[in-house]
């Protein structure tokens, strides 16, 4: 990767980690506040959904990073996202259909986004694995 892109990538990684830290802080804060206070339903609802706010900021950061990437990396990221959404969507649909007929453990929909992120990372790794070394 060229040095300008390398600097951009490092800056993105730092900002990304800051957003993750912000998410963890808000999540921890909301759990602690919920367990230590007797709150109204509205306050509980606000607290429960508050970790989504840093995730929205993270989404903005990722979209901004995507726009700064070159056309090939954009293509790889786009295809990886399609794989991630497709695989997680199909698995979720299969599990949902299975749950209609068989007794299966329930999973929180909160795990959908992390699952998409993991499959996205794997898909991106697979697509770029042949291009790690210069030919």
């Amino acid at each position, binding site marked *: 990767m*060229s040095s*300008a*892109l390398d600097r951009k990538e490092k800056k993105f990684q730092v900002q990304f980690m800051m957003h993750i830290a912000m998410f963890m802080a808000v999540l921890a804060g909301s759990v602690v506040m919920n367990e230590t206070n007797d709150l109204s339903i509205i306050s509980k609802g606000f607290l429960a959904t508050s970790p989504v706010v840093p995730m929205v900021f993270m989404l903005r950061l990722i979209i901004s990073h995507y726009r700064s990437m*070159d056309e090939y990396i954009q293509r790889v990221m786009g295809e990886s996202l399609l794989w991630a959404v497709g695989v997680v969507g199909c698995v979720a649909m299969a599990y949902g259909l299975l749950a209609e007929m068989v007794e299966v453990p329930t999973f929180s929909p909160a795990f959908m986004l992390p699952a998409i992120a993991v499959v996205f990372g794997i898909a991106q790794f697979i697509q770029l694995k042949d291009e790690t070394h210069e030919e």
Partner: protein
Amino acid sequence: MKNRLRVLRAENGWSQADLAERLGVSRQAVNAIETGKHDPSLNLAFAIADTFGERIEELFLHKG
């Protein structure tokens, strides 16, 4: 689409990273274009041609 990118790069003694730096793209993008995995946009194709001082049709050959 075939191209003479690797040959011209070798003639200039540039690595993929050197060419990527000049074009402002990732090394992976240069590699993908060289290996035919990715056809560059018109903008990038012109930038590549300018970098080598070649005409775009002398650099990229349509297979037909």
